[in-house]
């Protein structure tokens, strides 16, 4: 009887271990993230960024880039390398969940793919960002603030998964409640992305 219990115990332990091992596949985040600072978005075209080596890429017609940024006033684009916008495997899904809370990646078919007139990541206000306008709830008027919580799950050009949280849309990642930021005359330049991200390799 005691032997049986011991066997059961060992068995359970083994299952637990294999389960842990199973989790260390390519769709689990570890929590170790990188930060990209002041990536200036294009205004006419896109600024392309490689999430694996953290570099800005100029060759758009390649799988060398994973996401692209473009500042078009009332639409702020973050595109992925896939569908109609790139030769890669890219896609994305925007979640209203905090960056730290996302540990797993959803099924592959849950990712939006770039299509004509359709963007994998909603570029309009209310997507991953809000426009404060003159809404008295916000101290800073006419500002673009990243929505909290939000996380963008991205499928990279070569099919890996990454999560991204945009932290700031202004040069130098300023404190958006500081008097310098609130005052439009001293507010830093817009169109500069600071974001944290983690890629599962």
């Amino acid at each position: 009887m005691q032997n049986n219990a011991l066997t059961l115990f060992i068995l359970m332990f083994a299952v637990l271990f294999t389960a842990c091992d199973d989790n260390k596949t390519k769709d689990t985040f570890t929590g170790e993230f990188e930060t990209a600072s002041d990536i200036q978005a294009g205004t006419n075209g896109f600024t392309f960024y490689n999430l694996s080596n953290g570099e800005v890429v100029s060759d758009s017609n390649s799988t060398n880039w994973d996401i692209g940024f473009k500042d078009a006033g009332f639409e702020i684009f973050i595109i992925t390398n896939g569908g109609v916008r790139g030769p890669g495997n890219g896609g994305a899904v925007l979640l209203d969940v905090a960056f730290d809370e996302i540990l797993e990646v959803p099924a592959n078919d849950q990712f939006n793919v770039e299509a004509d007139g359709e963007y994998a990541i909603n570029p309009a206000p209310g997507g991953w960002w809000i426009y404060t306008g003159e809404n008295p709830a916000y101290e800073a008027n006419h500002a673009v603030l990243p929505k909290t919580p939000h996380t963008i799950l991205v499928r990279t050009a070569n099919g890996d998964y990454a999560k991204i949280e945009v932290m700031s849309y202004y040069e130098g990642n300023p404190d958006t409640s500081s008097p310098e930021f609130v005052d439009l005359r001293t507010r830093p330049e817009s169109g500069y992305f600071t974001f944290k991200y983690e890629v599962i390799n």
Partner: protein
Amino acid sequence: MYLLKHFLLGSIFFAVSLSVKAQSTSSLSGQILSATGESVAEANIYLSASKWAVSNSDGSFQIPSLPPGEYTIKVSRVGFKSASKMIEIEEDKNAFIEIILEEIIYESGSAVVTATRTVQDIEDVSIAVDVISEDEIQYSGSTNLKDILLEQAGISLSPNEGNAIQVQGFESDYTLILIDGQPLVGRVRGAMDISRINTSNIQQIEIVKGPSSALWGSDALAGVINIITKKPNEAISGNAFTQYGSRASYNGGATISFNKNKLSGTAGFVIDGSDGFDLDKEEFGQNQNPYDNFTINSSLKYEFSDLTSLSASSRYYKNNFSGLTIASVQGQQLGVGEEGWQDDLSFQLQLDSSPFSRFQTSVNLYSTLYEDYSETVFEDSNFENVTNNNQQGFNKIEVQNNYSWANNHISTFGTGFTKEFVDAERYQGRRNQEGLFLFAQHQFLVGEKLNIVAGARLDNHSSYTSYLSPKLSLRYEIFENLAFKASAGNGFKAPDFRTLYLDFDNAGSGYLIYGVKNIGAQLTSFENQGLVRQYFINPDLSTDLDPEYSTAYNAGFLIKTSDSRLTSNINFFRNNAQNLIEAIEIAELTNNNTIFGYVNINKAQTQGIESDLNYFVTNDLQISLGYQYLDAIQIAQESRTVIENGQVVTKDVEYEIPLTKRPKHSGSIKLFYEEPFFDTQISIRGVLKSKYFFNDSNANRRADSNEFTDPYSIWNFSLSKQFTTKIRAQAGVNNVFNYTNPEFLRFQPGISFFTKILFEF
């Protein structure tokens, strides 16, 4: 059958003859008089559960057929101190007794009207009521209602709204402000500027905490503040005063009152002004702009008889202001000049009558009009001046009746009709609302220790579905020195004109807001033009609003020492507010503009402890301490996209956010000392606030460490001296330690000095 009938008749006859035999011919009669010798009607005279009477209009009473013996008579009457007397009743004699009742002096702060709409001793009231007495106002040197209310522990200023206050963690929108029981109108974005009430004519301020809609209707969700003005009680009296202080602030006025034969009246005026103040010289404009205002008030009362009187009163206030401000024009922040005025006129007429014994009725007509006007002047630019004019009116007719059934039941019931309007360009002209209401309340004394008050009010309104607000409260005297109080009730706030009609459609700002009465047509029109890209919620949900409401529970104790030197109250409260109205995103247009609409979506919870302690160290030295613990959260609902079982799904989630600008701990310390030898009064008052979450300035829906204010305290000091019986001088320092915080406490000026001379006759 025949036999049974006879037996029954026989036994009835026997019983009757027995009772006739036992009936005593002794009786008691008497008269109840006030200390001034006037007869007191409707006093309850109590001998035992079956032997009691109510005094007639001439103060007389009779209790027939009393067995001889020794009795203790207890006499009680609302507005008077209870009295008891021993009397011996001899066989076959009619005993006569005269009992003099001492009036509860309303000035002493010991009687209140707001809790039950009848005059009641504050210690007998079953709900939480705070009273600020005339003496406290006088010693503080406060010239307006805001300054004196801020010295109370449980009341905080809403820093963004300027002169509006919070009660039990609710914003100023949810507290009803009354003057002599009549509502004040003229809220700007929901906030009531209470600095427009000057303190010179106030008898006392009553603050009822917790929902009081069962008696007072809409807006009494968090509480009611009722300002009781002075009533003339001397043949002729009057006063004149002048006050001058830092930043060229002045306050002065005069009042004359008379009370002769059947006619009494009062007339007075107050002027008030200041250069305002500026905390941060580098920031454009001042924190408070220069202003000057005046108030005129008058009242007249005629007593046709002891039972019937007619009174009329009026009040007019006008404030002028001018200064510099920052305006946002087409996305640009511009420094501009602003000037304007507010005025406020009210009139009331009331007939009080007691057509038959134990029944009182009053008919009241009330009419008030508020108007504000401002002009923004763009110097050195091509923009045209912007003017803004807003008019709000409120008219009411109301009947209230009180009936005392016996010595232990009082019923109150009433009904009324209201008509309100707002007239402003941004409301596209004049908008009207009408309402009909009924209320009833019963006060029941069970035995000598338990007092139960139950009431309800039904409001039927043109802009929302009917609303019923019930309330039940009780007070139980555990020991002579310890009483328990508890209440449960509902409070509500009707959707205001702003949420119903106000449209803001400045496309340049990226968003549009429509009132619920207009949004349906606007959405249809956008849809027909093919301009709607997507809806965030079902658009039909944004076309109607229900009242916001709260269910609240209060419970606490009143403790006092037998010599009444020390009294202390402690009250636990919990408010569950629901249906709170908020502007949320309804739809997105193809031009990227977002349409906002008002919906009943949010919930909030406030809970905490209020306590106070009042101690007479000696007859001349009084210390009062107040403390409030407050926990206030908002429960918001949002539709969120999340991962569930590997699928991306969108669902509604509720989450909590701490409500901003609400200190967890607030305290007050007050010390009054009357120095008898030099006839000097000294008062020291302090208000203490713990740190609090000021504003979610980065809109991350979380309280970050840099979004908290520092804890602070403000201390005020004043000294007054009576020179002759007619002249009193006062000097004081407010904010002695010169605490200012330009970032978070924008409406707290630095140290200021004042002197005042008061002449009374």
